[in-house]
């Protein structure tokens, strides 16, 4: 079901934990959906000196959180904002279709952390990021028709 890379990141997630001296936190997800991600960042100059996460969610949620922190760490803020969920999916060797939303959540978490950081520090926030922030906050848990194989 999951690729080797997903399972590897799920079983051995990178950058797990909180940053005691975090500059900002992005909190995304929704307990109703079962996925909650907190992304902590420590900024030095324009760079993400450290990135950590805590996630309540399925294997894909944990693996994509882990992956996004791994990729973002050391990037400039602008670079990190360019990270797409597609990149996450690809660098994890793919995700099952119903799990792609987890990669979106992970990228959103990072964006929210950066938004939080920029706001807190009175730095300019691009229009695009404002729009993203608004979308993220407005998004509710998407649910389909309920059905289980119910073994």
């Amino acid at each position: 079901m999951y690729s080797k890379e997903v399972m590897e990141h799920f079983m051995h997630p990178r950058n797990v934990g909180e940053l005691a001296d975090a500059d900002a936190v992005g909190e995304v997800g929704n307990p109703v959906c079962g996925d909650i991600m907190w992304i902590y960042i420590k900024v030095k100059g324009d760079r993400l000196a450290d990135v950590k996460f805590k996630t309540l969610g399925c294997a894909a949620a944990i693996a994509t959180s882990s992956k996004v922190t791994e990729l973002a760490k050391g990037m400039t803020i602008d670079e990190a904002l360019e990270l797409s969920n597609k990149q996450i999916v690809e660098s994890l060797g793919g995700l099952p279709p119903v799990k792609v939303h987890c990669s979106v959540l992970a990228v959103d978490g990072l964006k929210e952390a950066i938004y939080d950081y920029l706001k807190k520090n009175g730095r300019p926030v691009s229009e695009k990021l404002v729009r993203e922030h608004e979308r993220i906050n407005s998004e509710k848990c998407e649910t389909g028709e309920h059905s289980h194989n119910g073994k």
Partner: protein
Amino acid sequence: MDNKRIYLDHAATTPVAKEVFEAMLPYFSERYGNASSLHSFGQEAKDALEESRERIAKRMNSGAEEIIFTSGGTESNNLALKGIAARKGKGHIITSKIEHASILAPCRELVNQGFSVTYLDVDEYGLVDPGDVAGALREDTILVSIGHANNEVGTVQDIGEIGKITREKGVLLHTDACQSFTKEELDVKKQCLDLVSINAHKIHGPKGVGALYIREGVKIIPQSQGGEHEKNIRAGTENVAGIVGFAKAAEITGGKQVGYMKGLRDQLIKGVLSGVEGVRLNGHPEKRLCNNANYGFEGIEGEALLLRLDMRGVACSTGSACSSRSLMPSHVLLALGLKPEECHGSLRATLGMENTKEEIDYAIQAIKEEVSNLRGISPFWKRKQ
């Protein structure tokens, strides 16, 4: 990694028992005749078929001629519901909110066809109140279908009490006994049952075989047409090997195993409840299947726990939304009154007669550790403390 493999998902399916396999064996390449054939190969097959029918019937105190073989629990449930509905033409059906998909989906189909369906609520333990069945009966009620035991939380209904009510009112009662067969008492006469679905692969028989008990005199419209098999109720060359295996499975399961599994179940339930914080038992504390444990863990998600346990060789199941293609949590847990966020942390472990005390010890330890590992990653758990 550990090479241990501990299967705790017997509600999903079971390994074929050795005796069952041995009973089936001759019917693949030696006694392979078609039960409809007149020659000796065919008669051998026919004899095996009829003998199996008698053995299955014995396990529910029915007549052999009241047993119709099918391809599994899903087909039996479809045949029962749609077969009775087609026969009656119109009317009202009563079922519950915690039925298996193979009951609920045909019900939706029947609603599309103009039948009306009442889905009874259950209490927080998953019990249907027989009084609610009585209260929901209408002039035009044609069928009541209440599962004997729930596949997720293991709650066992008082089907005999429901049977008293329906028999008195002259309404047909169907029960999906796929999970309870050979584990709980099943007596079609005493419990006043008119239709009963069972299958083989939940009782250490092969996949792809089931049966429907249809009480003598109850008329049903076939859902699949063809040759004159199974009293013209279910067409198709009979799966002789599978049916022989089913009959053997029905014979060798149950009995002392029930008490044995109950012991393991209680060990598993107590071990986890006493060793882990923030966990609750889903389902009924006493009226539950001898092999079912279903937990709700706070602060973690079930699929992740399931996969981590799997990496340690422990196979379980979950009602978490993340494990379903539709991303909706289990309708059963929701019907028990759990909030969606509470459903996500569910884990179902269902035992089999081949599990051992040592395996349960190992599983408890694995569950403890992996719950703890996942909580170490979880923001929700941290916050709670």
